[in-house]
């Protein structure tokens, strides 16, 4: 049996290996306004940074400032925005009483939390 046949037996697909929560959260999260806006803003900022960098042409002080701004924004997205989204996501499940229907499935509390965390981590990677 080849390695591929072992990993993906007949009737199964690649995404079957992913946590159901991860799949749902990625589908949901990447359509969320906060993700789209953060992503677009970061792209705009990076473009401005590249242009400013080109204009500065070896001014080491200016380059240092730009790098500083870049990390402040990335840090804000990673350390504030994403954890807050994680909290909001769990509290929404409880508030909307969807956590109860999830509890009735085969998913354990650990798989739910880990799925949510990994979805946010994947979205953060996309941002950076």
């Amino acid at each position, binding site marked *: 049996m080849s390695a591929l046949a072992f990993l993906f037996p007949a009737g199964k697909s690649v995404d079957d290996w992913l946590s159901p929560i991860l799949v749902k959260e990625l589908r949901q999260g990447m359509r969320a306004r906060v993700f789209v806006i953060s992503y677009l803003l970061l792209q705009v900022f990076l473009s401005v940074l590249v242009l400013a960098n080109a204009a500065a042409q070896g001014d080491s002080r200016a380059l240092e400032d730009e790098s500083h701004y870049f990390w402040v924004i990335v840090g804000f997205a990673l350390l504030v925005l994403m954890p807050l989204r994680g909290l909001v996501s769990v509290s929404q499940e409880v508030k909307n*009483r969807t956590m109860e229907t999830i509890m009735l499935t085969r998913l354990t509390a650990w798989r739910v939390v880990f799925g949510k965390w990994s979805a946010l981590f994947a979205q953060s990677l996309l941002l950076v």
Partner: protein
Amino acid sequence: MSDEIILDVRNLRRSFGDVHAVQDVSFSIRKGQVVGFIGANGAGKTTTLRLLATLDTPDAGTINIMGCEATHYPDKVRARLGWMPDSYGNYDNVTVVEYLDFYARAYGYMGSRRTKHVNDIMEFTELTPIQDRLMHTLSKGMGQRLCLGRSLINEPELLLMDEPAAGLDPKARIEFKNLVRILSEQGKTILISSHILSELGEMCDTMLFIDKGRIVHHGDSETLRRGDESIIRLEIETTGNPDALVEWAALQPGLVLVDRTKRGARFDFTAKGPDELSLLLRRAITDGIAVSDFHRQERRLEDAFVEVLRKSNGSTSQGKP
């Protein structure tokens, strides 16, 4: 319908502080039955259903679902039951098909089997044409169908439905009733709660009445409708003055006024023999009542429910000092 007991509840109790939401509830349901769980708001329906769905733990009592003690082995029971709450949880930015796909994954369906299963569920609940619509754009009726689809995703043998038709328009109610009928024909056992009796009357084999956390009646809806067969509910209309009809009725033995209608009144008539009814009509005409309509009314489930509650409250208060 089989004789196999699928759900057996014994001496179930659940309190929240001083509020005794469920008190000594015992009943059992056979495989393939559709059981209406009826009670006023706050009677204990949702608490009981949540206990059965293993979403809450009882203070005392046992819940045996398909031979499995639910409080001790909730995971085993959860795999075989479907839970449809009174309000379905809405997800932002998730389409109908993605929602069902998520739950199918969560119940362990893989690859092409999952895709087929989700498609079958959408077909059954008539959600296929709207499979790519976002959940928050669905109407109440569509949402309830989606919620039903979700509760069927693990192919449960027992379905617990908490007020599934609440807030639905008449068309959506009819569609929902049809789905329940098909599920019942497929042999699913269904416990369906509501405080609207008319919507349960046609669907259910048996009725379970709950009041103040206690089961006050468990029986089939036909027996309940028939009630005390010696008492006949009559509706009489007159082309003349309805007051004259009511005054005349007050003098007739065995005839008790229930309520007045626009052109007449409704009465309970205690018949001693089969000819009593025709004799009563003949007497009315002889006494000068201009009868335009005289018919026997089938007892409504609402009336039966009120009577059961009245009897139950009567027996409770008799026991009090």
